[in-house]
């Protein structure tokens, strides 16, 4: 299996099942998801909005509000300890310490009424034995680490005084405050300008290398995946439909949904060809089709696809796909 078996496993999610209570009864947002991330590895979790990728990522530190959500099955082992079995005290010493998060919109993820230096300082005080001047020195060090110019002045500013890119750097500095083993970046560049996106991505990559963290990157942008990830898992309607090393998946997708995602990326210089789209839309969680969840939108679906859901099958080492007809995907 190459890379992932040779290194220690940091995160191991097994058969995770998360339900949400809605007006029309319980709905499964995550249905039997299994993932693992090795030391210093980056796994990208890709899918459309509502496919369950964020819920999966937030479940690691139990950050999905309960209720309305409820974990109904599976386990999440972080360095060998099941976070789903933790009490609230154990969760507090996990959150921000072993697993830290960077969220989508830094402008609303930072508290608007506190200075950014104080917000980073809070993260330091919560998990490390630094007090007083040592905290301020550590805040400065972190701000320098994430490449914020004039950190002495910046740390005394409020979030609204910083640009989006600077705000996201502050979020990253805050996430690094207690040297986490796993960094979860939930669409970290989606809310930013394209030029800033590249800066933040290369910063994340650089920090991951230097600090030896594992990273779970949530995104719907396959361009981001190509730049950053080692492996990719593609989610659709609460399930993983394909998992593969990044080069292999981008070169030769094996699931029709992955194929569709790749085809719908606009490419420069290829003439005025009409952009291809995946017809139809994601099924409503309350009205899941009985068979393959992607069948209603699939161009190669056959009659049996609508009857029974195919299993996630390992077609070659390190490569899994949830489609029995993967050979006809090209």
């Amino acid at each position, binding site marked *: 299996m190459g890379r992932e078996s040779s290194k220690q496993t940091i995160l191991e999610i097994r058969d995770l099942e998360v339900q949400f209570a809605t007006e029309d009864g319980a709905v499964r947002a995550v249905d039997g998801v299994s993932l693992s991330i090795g030391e210093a590895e980056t796994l990208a979790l890709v899918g459309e909005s509502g496919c369950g990728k964020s819920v999966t990522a937030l479940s690691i530190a139990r950050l999905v509000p309960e209720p309305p959500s409820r974990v109904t099955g599976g386990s999440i082992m972080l360095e060998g300890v099941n976070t789903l079995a933790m009490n609230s005290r154990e969760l507090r010493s996990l*959150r921000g310490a072993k697993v830290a998060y960077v969220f989508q919109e830094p402008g609303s993820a930072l*508290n608007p009424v506190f200075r950014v230096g104080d917000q980073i300082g809070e993260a330091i005080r919560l998990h490390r034995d630094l007090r007083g001047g040592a905290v301020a020195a550590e805040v400065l060090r972190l701000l320098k680490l994430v490449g914020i110019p004039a950190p002495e002045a910046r740390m005394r500013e409020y979030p609204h005084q910083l640009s989006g890119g600077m705000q996201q750097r502050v979020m990253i500095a805050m996430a690094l405050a207690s040297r986490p083993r796993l960094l979860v970046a939930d669409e970290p560049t989606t809310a930013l300008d394209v030029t800033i996106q590249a800066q933040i991505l290369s910063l994340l990559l650089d920090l991951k290398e230097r600090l030896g963290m594992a990273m779970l990157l949530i995104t719907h942008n396959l361009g981001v995946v190509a730049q950053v990830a080692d492996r990719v898992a593609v989610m659709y309607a609460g399930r993983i439909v394909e998992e593969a090393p990044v080069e292999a998946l981008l070169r030769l997708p094996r699931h029709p949904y992955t194929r569709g995602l790749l085809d719908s990326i606009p490419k420069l210089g290829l003439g005025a060809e009409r952009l291809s789209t995946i017809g139809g839309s994601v099924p409503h969680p309350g009205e899941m089709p009985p068979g393959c969840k992607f069948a209603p939108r699939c161009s190669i679906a056959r009659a049996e696809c609508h009857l029974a859901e195919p299993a996630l099958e390992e077609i070659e080492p390190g490569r899994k796909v949830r489609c029995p007809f993967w050979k006809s995907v090209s």
Partner: protein
Amino acid sequence: MGFGAYAVRRLLYTIPVTLGVMVLLFLLFEAIGGSPARLVLGKSATAESIAEWDAHNGYDLPLLISWEGLLRERSLVGLFDAQLPRYLWRLSRWDFGTSYVTNQPVRRMIFEGIIPSLSLTVPIFIAGFLASIGIALMCALHRKGHLDRIVVFLSVALMSIPYLGYILVGQFWLGYAWGWFPIWGYEGISHLVLPWLIGVVSGLGGNVRFYRTVMLDQVRADFIRTAFAKGCTTRRVLWVHLLRNAMIPILTQVVITIPFLYTGSLLLESFFGIPGLGYIGVHALHTGDRPVLSALVFVGSLLFVLFNVLTDLAYVWMDRRIRLG
């Protein structure tokens, strides 16, 4: 603009506003009302005694400005020998005249009434505020849970009971039937407990509902999730991250109610025999005691203007995103 400069500018704005209030008071109480001589002297007053009273109290002067005075005195000072300038001059020196009914200086009546009023309303305000904030935070934590639903139900129930209902039930059951509290007089803490209780409970429903809405709005915010993701305790998330943000809308509503504390509570004071400004005000209204009424309105307006400024300043202090200007 710095905070200090903003504060000074905001305070300077209160001068024209206060002047406007004074002019309005004059028009309402003095210009429209005319001379109160007949009211003061009684039905048996002769035309002579009324004219004499008017002359003594300045009601024979022109209303706004005095051209006669200008000619007589041959200086601008004479121009202001009229009812409005005299009225403004008196108010700005806190001279509210004497009560038509008790013949006491109005200023002294207000000073004497303000203590009972504040001893009634300030504890109600503080206890009610803290209780509402605490309950609302609890709701934000257990939103959509059983506790939250029960609180919402109780709040609506509390809001639906008229104020008089609380007073009657409190006085009859707690005061008379069970004998826990005295129901009349102002002789110490024991006489205030029941009105305090009624004041707090009657206001709780509306406040909790408003604060709960504000907090539920904030508890869904991304920065709350960030705070949890950092490893903050629930208590810290609520009392530090949530409350500081929720205080911005709450302050607007709360600070501006503070000036009304000074007038006391008309109903509570009347029903419990507390000699505060509410009681004095109601009495003055019944007897047409114009100096007392206009003084109460004037002081109330000043406090209102002042606390408006304080609200604005508190905003800026709480939320640095607000630009000064």
